[in-house]
């Protein structure tokens, strides 16, 4: 990074630390914080969308659709989310490879599962074994995002389903009395009203999502936990910057990062919930009305 860092052995004190903290590996460590933020930025909207679809499906009038919705919302109750984090990427990977195998190698007659092996033809591998490393990384990250989105979508479906049930029945009946169709009632009355009831659950879910991001490490993504272990481990004299076991300090940094993230979000949600309570027929809305009067 800096010219003075060319010979780390000659450095001392503060300049040693400055060079140490700007080494190439550390840059990758800082970069991996962005991976966490990227995961949050992608997962949150996708999970919200999945949850929304799941909650609407659970209220649907067509029975098969309703069963799908109810099954999806019930999925995460009773089973630890980590089971899904381990299961979904592998299952998805094998499912995709199997589909490609059917499509690309139709004349392959050996069974896919031979004893303890899962064998598909070379053209069906995902990504192809000849593709550069970056595609393997992107594929792994995508599978992780899908796993997170599926699990948190089910959580969100629970929250939104509860919120839809919490909208006062009288509001919907009034809309029906005005001659609105079920679809109009859902779109004009139910969905706009529901957010105020959903917000506490959703904010709680966001916190759980933030606190679930280190599990990326379990899915084989080189995330902040991976780098903290890698960089903190004892470095002997053959390394440029030898140091004893510093993993505890690296994990303290991660702890501080997560504490900062959760308290920042908490403050943000307090603002949003105040905004949503305005004009609502709830205790918070009533308190706001009285304060202004």
């Amino acid at each position, binding site marked *: 990074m800096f010219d003075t860092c060319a010979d780390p052995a000659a450095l001392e004190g503060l300049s040693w630390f400055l060079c140490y903290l700007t080494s190439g590996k550390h840059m990758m460590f800082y970069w991996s914080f962005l991976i966490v933020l990227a995961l949050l930025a992608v997962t949150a909207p996708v999970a919200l969308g999945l949850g929304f679809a799941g909650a609407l499906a659970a209220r649907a009038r067509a029975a098969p659709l309703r069963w799908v919705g109810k099954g999806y919302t019930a999925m995460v109750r009773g*089973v*630890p989310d980590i089971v899904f984090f381990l299961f979904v990427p592998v299952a998805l990977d094998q499912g995709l490879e199997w589909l490609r195998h059917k499509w690309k190698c139709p004349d392959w007659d050996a069974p896919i599962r031979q004893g303890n092996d899962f064998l598909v033809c070379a053209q069906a591998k995902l990504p192809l074994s000849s593709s550069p490393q970056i595609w393997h990384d992107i594929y792994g990250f995508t599978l992780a995002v899908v796993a997170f989105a599926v699990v948190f979508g089910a959580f969100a479906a629970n*929250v939104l389903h509860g919120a839809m049930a919490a909208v006062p029945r009288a509001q919907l009946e009034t809309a029906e009395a005005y001659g609105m169709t079920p679809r109009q009632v859902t779109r004009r009355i139910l969905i706009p009203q529901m957010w105020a009831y959903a917000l506490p659950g959703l904010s709680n879910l966001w916190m759980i999502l933030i606190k679930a*991001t280190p599990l990326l490490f379990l899915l084989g993504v080189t995330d902040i936990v991976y780098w903290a272990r890698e960089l903190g481990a004892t470095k002997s004299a053959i390394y440029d910057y030898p140091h004893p076991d510093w993993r505890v300090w690296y994990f303290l940094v991660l*702890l501080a990062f997560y504490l900062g993230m959760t308290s920042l979000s908490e403050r943000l949600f307090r603002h949003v919930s105040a905004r949503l309570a305005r004009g609502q027929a709830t205790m918070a809305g009533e308190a706001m009305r009285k304060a202004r009067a």
Partner: protein
Amino acid sequence: MSCWDIIADYGLRSIGIGERLLPRSDFTLCHQFTLIGSGLIWNIYFGVLALAFGFVLATALALAKAQANPWLRKPADWFIYIFRGSPLFIQFFLAYEALVLLPRAGFDIFGITVQTAWTTKAWAGALFVLFLNTAAYSAEIFYGALRSVPKGDLEAADAYGLTGWRKFRRVVWPTMLRLAWPAYTNEAIFLFHATTLVFFSGFPAFQQRGDALYYAKFFADKTFNPFIPYPIAAFYFIVLTLALIGLFGVVNRRLNRHLPGARRARLKVRPQIIR
């Protein structure tokens, strides 16, 4: 080899009784059910002990947080903030790396050597982290319940001349528990689910003695087939969750037994995902 033989060999494998080596090939359904079920012993061990110790600390923390005295309130606030605001996964890593740094030979305190090696083992170190973690979450629940103890109950206690410890023991504490119980049930379920993280977070599984998910992953890695071991693990956890709800439901009925039927809070069978 019949299924009974497999159960005899591997049923207690996770605590070091029975066959020493894990199966290498020919993984039957019976193998998977037996070993994953054997791993569940660890989940129950961590869950039950952390919950029992955590309950005591949580009550103390909730009381401290409700005090006006900042010397009691602030430490409780900070403890709850740190453990609720950061991921359990990171807490496990941090605790493990910190415990590894303790001197290998142990401390010398007044001529007595205090051993430290055992603290890095999962049964002690991970249990300690889980204990602190669940104490923080439960303390927040208990604090909320403590603040919603009806004023009338307290006035009635005053009218009867109850003060101090007796007032707490007979009026405040039972009411707090009654109000907190549905949320506390939920926390207990979360805790049991969180125990699956232990062997994925730095704490080594000594001689491959792991928990249910550890063995499920073992089978998934060996057979390249995730569609059998993970559903088995899921099945065990659903049974565990239902058992927990049943058990906590019994306690809930006892806590509410003095109330007229209509006012009794029924424990919902569907656990909320609020934490």
